[in-house]
């Protein structure tokens, strides 16, 4: 029983960050319809910003987090302005190829600047874990969960309750009509991509100190983010959050009770099942076709 409880705690902590990765990508992949291969690199980028600010500049850990989010926002905006804006209206394959190129170039860039050896970030949290009866959890991970929950809530409110969010939803539903209604469509494209990117950077900034930081760390994270988005239904923020927790649960229980060798396969078995039985994702709203 205590083992099961421990798995549940692990799932909560892991699921929070998966959810954060998922909502960032669902904005870009689900709403903007850009197959964003740079999502993993932005995750890596956020983690390296933490490394620079905390380890190299010696500044405060909590100050580094907003810096990483802001840096992710700026890099995302730059990618949108330089790569995606000239390609708007071109087919999805072209955009995809350009994004793959950007992914490889940026990953090689991190390798060139920081080298292949993993870096770690010191945190202000105590080493001794919080012990609650039979289960225990590190303070750092609790903080990560809380920060992720806060970011998810802010994103949800931004999309659903603000005029910017309304303009975003309108733009991606019908770009021409939104434009006719006075929405600055160009600005909406850039800010949506930038917000999605800053969420990826935030996930990297939060998880980098939990694990270690290296140039390829984003690859597996990006694959998982795509899985979560597909699981939750494209463009569905609530779906991405629940999808993140489902993936974490599948990994924890799969590794705990089936076989740890197939831990990373568990999530993808679920994706295959979802694609076969409910291809629009678990939480997609019914849509009118035609």
């Amino acid at each position, binding site marked *: 029983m205590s*083992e099961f409880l*421990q798995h549940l705690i692990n799932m909560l902590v892991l699921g929070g960050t998966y959810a954060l990765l998922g909502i960032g990508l669902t904005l870009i992949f689900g709403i903007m319809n850009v197959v964003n291969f740079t999502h993993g690199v932005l995750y890596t980028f956020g983690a390296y910003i933490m490394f620079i600010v905390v380890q190299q500049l010696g500044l405060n850990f909590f100050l580094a987090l907003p810096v990483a989010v802001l840096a992710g926002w700026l890099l995302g905006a730059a990618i949108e302005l330089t790569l995606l804006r000239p390609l708007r209206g071109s087919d999805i394959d072209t955009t995809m190829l350009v994004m793959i190129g950007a992914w490889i170039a940026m990953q090689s860039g991190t390798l060139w600047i920081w080298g292949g*050896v993993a870096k*770690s970030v010191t945190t202000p949290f105590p080493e001794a874990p919080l012990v609650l009866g039979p289960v225990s959890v590190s303070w750092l*991970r609790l903080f990560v969960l809380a920060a992720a929950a806060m970011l998810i809530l802010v994103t949800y409110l931004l999309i659903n309750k603000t005029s910017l969010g309304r303009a975003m939803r309108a733009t991606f539903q019908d770009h021409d009509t939104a434009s006719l209604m006075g929405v600055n469509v160009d600005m909406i494209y850039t800010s949506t991509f930038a917000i999605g990117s800053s969420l990826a950077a935030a996930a990297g900034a939060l998880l980098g100190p939990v694990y270690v930081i*290296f140039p390829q760390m984003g690859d597996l994270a990006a694959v998982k983010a795509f899985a979560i988005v597909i699981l939750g239904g494209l463009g569905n923020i609530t779906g991405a959050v629940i999808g993140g927790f489902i993936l974490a649960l599948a990994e924890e229980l799969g*590794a*705990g009770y089936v076989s740890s060798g197939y831990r990373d396969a568990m999530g993808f078995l679920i994706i295959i099942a979802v694609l076969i039985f409910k291809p629009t994702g678990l939480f997609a709203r019914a849509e009118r076709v035609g």
Partner: protein
Amino acid sequence: MTRTLGLVPAIVLATALFGGAAGAQTIKIGVNEPLTGAFAASGTYVVNGARIAADEINAKGGILGKKIELVIEDNKSNPTEAAAVAEKLITSDKVPVLMGAWGSSLTLAVMPKLMEYETPMVVETSSSGKITTTGNPFIFRISPPSAVEAAAFKGIVDKLALKKVDFLVINNDWGRGTAEDFSKMMKDKGITIGLVETMDQGAQDMSAQLSKIKSSDSETVIVTTAVDQLTLIFKQAAALGLKKRIITTGGSQNPDQIIAQAGAAANGTMHLTTFLPWFPDKTPNPEATNYFITEWKKRGFEFAGCTESFRGYDGIRTAAAAIEKAGKAEPAAIKAALWNINIKGLNGDIVFRKSGPEGKESGQSQPNVYLIEINDGKVEMKTI
């Protein structure tokens, strides 16, 4: 303008010719190591150790009157890349001998290429038994196979009063091979084998595996993986309140890095290692060990890397000794000469003995294996 353009190919040609001529003045040794990916830290340490050996040899005038030149390539911790890198080093750089490829799965992927091009390779780190038992006569290994590690560990098993043991190993030839060899030895000793958990080489979160191990009734966990994943395991085990004795194998632990990154969580852990940089006087070759450690520090590398980098140092010295003995930098001659070398490595004499099926034996040297314990953030040697 036309004349200027015409000059460019001429300059390129001249550079190529000159470069080619300069190339013939050196003897090349191919180095196939993981410099990126899951084993980047370890591979980089090995390459830095290899550079110290090459510089030392060159400072003394090189071999056969020529300087040695390391051609270093990154196998990206990926077996497919490791095989491609070996092919590139042999066919394009024309190296007569290689050193590599750190991981067992990486080395196993390179082995068919060695057969194809009949080029020998000094294996400096890999510990899967399969490497020297499948009949590849181009393999010369200076690191201990996991069965040798298990045999060395056998002596201390009674003292530690082991009763039931779980395993947490990296999911590749190295980890699974270690679990197999250690299980066999322990079963002979009457120790019960509990869980055998695995983790992918790039995995960063081992909490699920560790939670499972935490709930088992074993008192000891044997962990096999490289330093990056080990530090994560120590941190995550501490976060889960896992209170079992942890023993690591494989010699890629870099204990000082574990002390630095895992802090108090490292106390009481034991590690099977193949080098004793903390106690140079207790190594088989104190003079060379002191030289190596001084040189390592002089270059500004972290002391923690010594336990891995010495493999690169010994590996290059082994290859160089064979080239010298062969009298020429040709693969067949070097392969024959490797059987006849006897050099003082930092971890014992490097002399190759035959291993594997008759007629196509691989070479296996017999290095020492040590058990160390971390106490109060310090490394102590245990007698095996």
